[in-house]
């Protein structure tokens, strides 16, 4: 995790939004801390965007209080003055019918920055987002990815104290999405911009979020580091939404036979991936890729990773059984009924859990000694 996350920049307490007698939002407490990316995930209609609008001072809550840097909103500074310390990017790029450059500098123009200075401040962002060559182009002629990059440049150009992102990748095709996701990840890590990211996409939350809030039915059901949320969902609904993946937080120890050796808890794993010693990573494993064997049979030999553990839980789900094994960290496996019977799987049973080096999906989460600083 980012070591230097600090005081809350934007916080909500007792937030309720009721429309037509039905509560759309009921959030006891939420806060984004200085320098962190808070990812808010949940299904459609969970109230994520409503929460973002309330925190962004774009929609007044029916009840509750929003605080900006500890001060209640409404006391002293006007909404407009506070909004000018933030910036938002929505799913739709929502550009004005003019050139890319004029669009990108709009936030500065609205703040009364003269054009030459606005241009000077916007240019680095156009460069950084790879759209400098489009500066003179009409926004109407842009592709979806280019338009969203313009929208991001427009937001970053005002150097917001909080950046609010509402499904910024959802409208893009897969390749444009992947490219932009990578660029945004880099910028957020370089600048350390305090960010709230709303998404329904698990991977985006895992990749960008320092903390993840899971929302359903207008409530935040869990707010924790991503690996906690995914490894230990607080309820069935959360588990159902995030899926039963194994997500293990680890640190790269080094390379070995073209594979990465990664330390997770007090165990070490060998997986395929890229990285260098000291990198923080998340190792993602699908439950159906976890193989179980009885001790000392140690499972199939092609599995590079074999971990002794103890069965904690065995639960039937449809035709398969969900088996949780404690290997120093919980590992969830999906196995067939004959396998459960053959291995005599039950609580307390000692087993070997294994998986192939190729079964793991690695997510890089930056370095311990990641340099920080503002772009420009």
């Amino acid at each position: 995790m980012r070591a230097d996350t600090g005081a809350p920049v934007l916080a909500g307490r007792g937030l309720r939004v009721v429309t037509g007698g039905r509560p759309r939002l009921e959030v006891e407490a939420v806060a984004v801390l200085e320098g962190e990316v808070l990812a808010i995930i949940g299904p459609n209609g969970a109230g994520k965007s409503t929460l973002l609008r309330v925190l962004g001072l774009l929609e007044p809550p029916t009840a509750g209080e929003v605080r900006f840097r500890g001060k209640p909103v409404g006391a002293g500074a006007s909404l407009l003055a506070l909004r000018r310390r933030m910036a938002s990017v929505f799913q739709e790029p929502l550009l004005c019918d003019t050139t890319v450059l004029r669009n990108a500098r709009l936030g500065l123009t609205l703040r009364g920055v003269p054009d030459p200075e606005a241009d000077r401040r916007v240019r680095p962002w156009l460069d950084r987002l790879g759209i400098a060559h489009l500066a003179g182009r009409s926004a109407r002629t842009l592709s979806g990815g280019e338009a969203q990059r313009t929208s991001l440049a427009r937001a970053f150009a005002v150097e917001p104290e909080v950046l609010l992102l509402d499904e910024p990748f959802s409208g893009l095709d897969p390749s444009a999405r992947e490219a932009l996701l990578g660029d945004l990840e880099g910028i957020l890590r370089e600048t350390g911009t305090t960010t709230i990211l709303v998404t329904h996409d698990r991977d985006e939350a895992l990749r960008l979020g320092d903390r993840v809030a899971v929302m359903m039915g207008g409530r935040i059901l869990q707010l924790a580091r991503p690996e906690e949320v995914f490894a230990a969902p607080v309820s069935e609904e959360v588990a159902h939404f995030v899926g039963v993946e194994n997500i293990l937080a680890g640190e790269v120890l080094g390379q070995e036979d073209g594979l990465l050796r990664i330390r997770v808890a007090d165990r070490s794993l060998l997986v395929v991936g890229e990285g260098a010693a000291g990198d923080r990573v998340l190792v993602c494993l699908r439950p159906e890729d976890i193989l179980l064997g009885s001790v000392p049979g140690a499972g199939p030999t092609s599995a590079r990773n074999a971990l002794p553990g103890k069965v904690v839980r065995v639960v039937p789900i449809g035709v398969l059984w969900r088996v949780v094994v404690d290997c120093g960290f919980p590992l969830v496996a999906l196995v067939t009924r004959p396998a459960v019977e053959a291995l005599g799987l039950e609580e307390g049973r000692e087993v070997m859990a294994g998986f192939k080096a190729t079964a793991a999906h690695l997510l890089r989460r930056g370095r311990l000694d990641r340099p920080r600083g503002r772009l420009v």
Partner: protein
Amino acid sequence: MELIWEGIRHALWLLFTADPEVLGITWLSLQVSGLATLASLAVGIPLGTLIALTRFPGRGLVVSLINTGMGLPPVVVGLFVSIFLWRSGPLGALELLYTPTAIVIAQFVIAAPIVTGLTLAAVQQIPPGFRLQMLALGASRPQLLWLLAREARLPMLAAVMAGFGGVISEIGASMMVGGNIRGQTRVLTTATVLETGKGNFDVAIALSLILLAIVFLVNWALTSLQQPRRA
């Protein structure tokens, strides 16, 4: 057939010799309809924008009324403006009936709903998220209105065209509140009716050609403003 050719020939002669009466009528038409259009823009654009952006009880009714107003029959407008300006009417003391001002008022009443309705439609076709995005970018209330007007500028040009085209070619109201007084309130349409009635087809054709030319020129100018942005 000969009647038509003779009419057109004489009409062109009237035009090229810049007949003072024809020129006078044309100039008055431009002034009256131009003023009425400007006034309807001054009222219709802010009003249309306001209605597009706000939600209030009875809004649906207001929008329906505006849409009905877009098709307001000029004779009906002429009738009511006449009643209001009649010597014994509510505004009779102003003694405006049968003056160019009366025609401007009547044409304003015709054009204002057209401009309001088209502005309303133009502003509403901007994606709903756009307002939120502009506010989120730090736009103040006046800045937001300005940005919305700028986004809707092309469809609003259509409002200008429709407003002006509607009033310069209407006849009922001009006839009723203006009275078609020679040299005072005679405009292109009322003059055309009169000359046709008298069998002076040459003059009527000349006036019609001028009217057509004005409508064409205005629309061509506005359209050419709209088109070159195609990249």
